């Protein structure tokens, strides 16, 4: 029916538009979200329909942007605060982690902070060490925050819509290299369930677990492996909090092998969390160590060659899987 070819960017815009039509307490607050339409174009033209009262351009004051969203969320609005780059989290972690994440708990459940912090991260544009990071590890380590990282246009749409109905703060991290990806999406289809992983490809030899852009890298690897008669199962987590371990465990218990893939730096990151959990939960089923593929433990260099070499590639996934299977 409403199946259309749509980009990840447009799916996000559509989600905002539909949510703003459905709920007039939804407001968008951030730098260049109004007239400019967002640094990556996600809010383009929304100001025409909703006006400057709901597409609120701010000064370059990230700590206050998040702090204002917290206060607004406590008093009747449902703000979508936009952080132009996830790299700016360092400026707002106090408002996010000490305030938004803890208010419900510290106040004994009196009130929540129903806000969404939309931002984008990752490599792909030679934007350098301060504009290319994957910092979901900090968020995942902060009790009280939900965390969504969609890989597809359909998930971008449904997860953002769902985020805008939750009673708690959601960090919603898009990937800068996915905005222009086009897909056929049925917007009327059953919505992506919140907090559930999806099996993107079924297989028997090994389980690949990942999220966000690495889903597509892993898919490419899985296709290459299929040509070599290696059948891998690919799980896209979609949300990191909640974390759907049930889907992961079921798969690994069947395949006996797992590789986890994350673009963020290896040490202390999401890949480690996944490997630790799989190791705990699937110990008796594992035929090989759970292998983590992740970003190198370095700042992201500007040089395009170095940048692309600093994160996992399809070739690396293929090689690693083959070695794990001794093939």
């Amino acid at each position, binding site marked *: 029916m409403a199946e259309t070819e749509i980009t990840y960017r447009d799916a996000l815009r559509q989600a905002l538009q539909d949510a703003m039509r459905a709920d007039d307490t939804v407001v968008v607050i951030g730098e260049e979200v109004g007239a400019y339409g967002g640094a990556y174009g996600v809010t383009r033209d929304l100001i025409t329909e909703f006006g400057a009262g709901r597409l609120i351009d701010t*000064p370059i004051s990230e700590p206050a942007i998040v702090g*204002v969203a917290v206060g607004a969320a406590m008093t009747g609005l449902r703000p979508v605060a936009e952080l132009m780059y996830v790299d700016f989290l360092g400026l707002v972690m106090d408002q996010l982690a000490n305030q938004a994440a803890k208010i419900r708990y510290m106040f*004994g459940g009196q009130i929540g902070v129903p806000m969404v912090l939309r931002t984008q991260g990752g490599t792909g544009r030679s934007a350098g060490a301060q504009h290319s990071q994957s910092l979901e590890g900090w968020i995942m380590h902060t009790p009280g925050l939900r965390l969504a990282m969609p890989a597809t246009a359909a998930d971008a749409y449904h997860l953002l819509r769902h985020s805008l109905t939750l009673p708690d703060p959601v960090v919603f991290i898009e990937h800068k290299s996915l905005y222009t990806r086009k897909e056929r999406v049925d917007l009327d289809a059953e919505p992506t369930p919140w907090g559930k992983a999806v099996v993107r490809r079924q297989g028997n030899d090994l389980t690949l677990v990942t999220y966000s852009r690495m889903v597509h890298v892993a898919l490419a690897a899985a296709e290459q492996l299929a040509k070599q008669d290696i059948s891998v199962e690919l799980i896209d987590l979609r949300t990191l909090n909640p974390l759907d371990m049930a889907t992961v465990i079921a798969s690994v218990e069947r395949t006996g092998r797992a590789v986890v893939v994350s673009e963020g730096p290896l040490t202390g990151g999401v890949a480690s969390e996944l490997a630790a959990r799989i190791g705990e939960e699937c110990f008796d089923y594992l035929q090989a160590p759970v292998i983590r593929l992740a970003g190198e433990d370095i700042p992201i260099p500007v040089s395009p060659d170095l940048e692309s070499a600093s994160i996992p590639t399809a070739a690396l996934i293929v090689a690693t899987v083959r070695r794990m299977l001794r093939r």
Partner: protein
Amino acid sequence: MTPPDATPGPARANTRLPELYRTMRRIRTFEERVAELYARGLSAGSMLHLSIGEEGAAAGVAAAMRPEDSFTTHHRGHGIFLARGADPARMMAEIGGKEAGYCRGKGGSMHIADMALGHLGANAIVGGGIPHVVGAGLSYKRLGTDAISVAFFGDGAMQQGLLYESMNMAALWDLPVLFVCINNQYGMGTRIDRATRSIEFDRRAEAFGLAAAMVDGEDVEAVHRTAQALADGARGGKPGFMAISCFRFFGHGRMDKSPYRTAEEEATGRKRDPVSRARDALLSQGLNDAAALDALDAGIAREMDATIDFTAAADAPAGASMFRDVFGPGEPEPEPLQSRLDRILADA
């Protein structure tokens, strides 16, 4: 630098001084009982910050607020919350970490809050609650209510950048917001002149486009008049800022014996006492006689004594409550360590 409304106070017949005195006395006595709670080992921890000496600020500004208004405070916020109508027993129970407290024992002195009274929260991060009132102001403007939101903070927060970002946004968006700096001369052991070169704080706010005033916190009526004028302005969409000068009578927290200041400085500072000044004024203006005030004070003392007994007798929160309220009702909760271990080690 003169308050926007510098006219003399209202005709004496209309004075709110009796009410302001009562509020201030309740704060003073409550804080004395907090000190006692700590001394008796009944408080949750030692991070208790008394607002003795600052009653004029709390009472004066609070009286300029309406029931629908909201506010956030810093860590030294007991007095402000009381002045906005808090139940001292539930406050004390929270300070004692008990289930009967405002936050069921999870927040304590530094994170007390009550949505029913518009208290959007005390904060243990200096400056942390300031932008929240800007967010509240945004809500009120958008939702078309008549409320304002007030941020209370110390002189220490005048050196936190977030304050300026917040004031700038409030001015840019014409929000119904009031920023109130309670300048008690000290941030922990640092006197304000060792924290900044310029204490003309109103100039800072004006430079961002706010209406601004400085006022002496010993004079609760002056505080109230100034706050009223700025609150009226804020309700009309012109955000305001006021700095209230006073003196922190005691140490920063319960452990701090103030070795960094002289006995003489303390003695002089404590002469700036808004409570006794108001009492003297009530007597000298014939608004009350000493016996009536003594009776009032004694009643307050009894009320506040009872808060300690209430707290001592109250239950600690049940262990299982630890996992409640991380997320909203019905949402998936974090898995307790013990459940995880039971599952993983079940067949080990």
